[in-house]
């Protein structure tokens, strides 16, 4: 049990370091780093505060603390993946609209050029 909590602590710290380093190098935008940081900090706190983890375990009625920690972690990351799916969907829609706009504007520019050539 203690080993599992220690491993979770180490993984949480590594995740925080990776996220902060990525933000510093501009590999990830600040707004998208917040949810990763919150998730990592939440896992860190739960792995270090055993009474808190026990309270959560009692509230959820789960048989033991490692399972509670695992399910909480899985739930948090599932929510984050869903959030990113929403973001990706919006980005795809915006990207398609933008590509269509670029194509149409290029078409108009080409038409104007052809028109000018014909007049010249």
């Amino acid at each position, binding site marked *: 049990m203690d080993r599992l909590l220690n491993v979770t602590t180490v993984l949480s710290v590594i995740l925080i370091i990776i996220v902060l380093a990525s933000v510093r190098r501009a590999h990830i935008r600040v707004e998208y780093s917040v949810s990763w940081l919150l998730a990592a900090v939440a896992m860190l706190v739960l792995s270090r505060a055993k009474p808190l983890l026990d309270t959560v375990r009692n509230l959820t009625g789960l048989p033991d603390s490692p399972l509670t920690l695992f399910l909480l972690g899985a739930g948090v990351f599932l929510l984050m993946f869903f959030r990113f799916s929403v973001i990706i969907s919006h980005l*795809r829609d915006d990207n*398609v609209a933008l*590509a*269509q706009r*670029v*194509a*149409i504007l*290029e*078409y*108009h520019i080409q038409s104007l050029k052809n028109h000018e050539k014909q007049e010249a």
Partner: protein
Amino acid sequence: LTRPVLPGSLLIIIPAFNEEGAIASVIGEVHEFVPGAPVLVIDDSSTDETRERARAAGADVLPVPHHLGLGGCVQAGYKLAWELGYAYVIRVDGDGQHDPRDIPRVFQRLKNSGCEMVIGSRFVTDNGSRTGKVRSLGIRFFRLVLRPILGKPVHDPTSGFVGVNRNALNVFRASFPLDYPEIEALVVLQRRRFRFEEVPVRMRPRTTGRSSITALKSLYYVVHVLLGVFVNVLKFERRLHRAPRAGDQTPGEGG
């Protein structure tokens, strides 16, 4: 950039991706059977010579900057047609399966019926058109699903041989399904109380290339389209039961 509407004007759009083998003959046939109608090929970032051959055959080309898929391409064509002021748009495929001899019939029905969409259908009358077993099964399934939703039978819901008028253009330029658009587009129009009709057309076997549809993709297609249909139905049911508000915007459907 939107120009005034040209009453009675028709634009033929051909979405194409790597169709260098067939595109020139399709354009040639369109010019032959619909003389005077401009042809716009929407090139979905083909890696072959589709674009050059389309231009050489006398079509205008709208090259999109990167691969958008069928729905994105068709919508780009609809957007441009709207801006150029066309009253009617008919879409045919670039692989030569749709017979351009049927375009005048679709166009006549569009103009005379006043309905927003006309579907070129292989199955309104038995004209000898044949499809694969899996596709045929899918079409039968969607006929059953769509019958209660549309309130009338549709014989060929997956047909890409489609004509639309300016009312439908106005809807589709704002919102059009990106993947597998035919069935979802039909539902979107119907939920707006727009009308559609079917006219019989011939479907020819593919002359070049080969279909990319596999059994797994067919299954994905069914699930994807079913989800899109029901999402649209639910969305519009909610909207119909909501009191109309001033300035209510309609676009946003499709996926």
